[in-house]
């Protein structure tokens, strides 16, 4: 029923329009600065609450304040991997070019958050646990997550044809998503056998309300930052890959 379809399209807003890189490019350009501004404001507010408003922790003193960066980064590292695998899967299933671009745009941001989570974790571990690194279940699975990100990016970098790179990366990302829970649980069993839970994040005292607010503000700031960064990166990827098309030439001609 082509006529019905046509009618439908004209009557309602067509989301699939933005599956085309050409249509998405200006949209991403329009949204990204808003998310960036949003992220900047939330970072300032969140860090202010975290460093000046939130009370000092009874057990850990001031050193606990790294939680305001550490926990949001750790959450984002996992959320972004899921988002990446989601877009990769969509790209594989519907053969949409933009989905693959989105997946590769998300990967570096996800890897950065994973790295930040590990790094701040080490900085936090030194004063509280007395060591930079523990083979704790969470740390170990976060480290493996970082390797999964690196594997995804290395695979895409090794393939010259962008379409093949997208698809190969998609298969790898989906395999990784199935494996992440298995990795997490196996690491947890391994850890509980090796050492008792002498160091555990669970033993932290219940959080004060201002601490929680500060952390949630930081979480939203990280979300906004991740969205802005991914959109900007996907714009660059679109320009690189569509360089031969007329609209990109026209756009670049207008820029210079």
């Amino acid at each position, binding site marked *: 029923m082509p006529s019905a379809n046509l009618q439908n399209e004209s009557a309602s807003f067509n989301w699939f329009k933005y599956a085309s890189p050409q249509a998405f490019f200006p949209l991403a350009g329009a949204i990204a600065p808003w998310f960036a501004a949003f992220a900047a404001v939330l970072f300032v507010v969140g860090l202010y609450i975290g460093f000046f408003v939130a009370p000092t922790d009874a057990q850990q003193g001031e050193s606990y304040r790294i939680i305001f960066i550490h926990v949001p980064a750790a959450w984002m590292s996992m959320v972004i991997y899921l988002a990446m695998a989601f877009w990769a899967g969509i790209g594989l299933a519907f053969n949409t070019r933009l989905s693959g671009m989105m997946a590769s745009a998300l990967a570096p941001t996800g890897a950065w958050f994973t790295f930040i989570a590990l790094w701040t974790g080490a900085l936090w571990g030194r004063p509280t646990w007395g060591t930079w690194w523990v083979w704790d279940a969470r740390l170990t699975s976060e480290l493996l997550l970082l390797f999964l990100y690196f594997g995804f990016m290395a*695979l895409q970098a090794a393939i010259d044809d962008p379409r093949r790179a997208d698809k190969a990366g998609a*298969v790898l990302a989906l395999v990784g998503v199935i494996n992440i829970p298995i990795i997490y649980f196996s690491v947890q069993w391994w850890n509980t056998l090796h050492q008792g839970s002498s160091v555990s994040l669970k033993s932290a005292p219940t959080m004060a309300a201002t601490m929680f607010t500060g952390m949630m503000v930081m979480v939203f700031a990280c979300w906004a930052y991740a969205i802005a960064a991914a959109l900007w990166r996907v714009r660059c990827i679109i320009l690189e890959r569509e360089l031969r098309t007329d609209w990109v030439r026209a756009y670049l001609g207008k820029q210079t």
Partner: protein
Amino acid sequence: MLSVMRNVIARDLTLAWRRRADVFVSVLFFVIVASLFPLGIGPEPKLLRVIGPGVVWVAALLASMLALSRLFADDYADGTLEQMLIGATPLSMIVIAKVFAHWIAANLPLVLIAPLLGLQFGLPADALAVLALALALGTPSLSLIGAIGAALTLGLRGGGVLLALLVLPLYAPVLILGSLAVEATATGMTAQPYLLLLAAMSLAALSLAPWAIAAALRISYE
């Protein structure tokens, strides 16, 4: 379909037998890597007994991974793989046959030689049996997961190192459960839960990985 699978298995095993040297190189690599650890760590028997299960498993993991590049490379080079791709038999079925043959040629020797290495590390007799059993149950999932990586890196520059980066993080659960099984036996506990989990993982890999391998092979040929 089954006759095609049988033929693929017979063909790959024949090829592997004609190139016995490759198999020996894999096994030798396994033995050498495991033997290097005492040299680096020291001959203290108590320490070696503790690290033994993990060392043997890591060495097996590496040996199994190094053999992966042989899995599709020759068929890719001479065009056999392309025929398999366009043939009537479902690619995932052919892939199962190929991985099975590869497991027999590349991993079964490791399973058989592993108790000898365990002996070098002073593991008790029942732990040696569990080591072989755990390897027998765990290596199929290594081959299946590794085959995904081998298919993805087919014909890429720097394929070998890249393969390691893709595959080794995914091997972590097998390594953990495998060495836990041996360790549990060595310290007088039951290895059964770990062995069952290893078997479960291999079965899950058997049901899911062939699709991913087939998809990856098709992507490599685009």
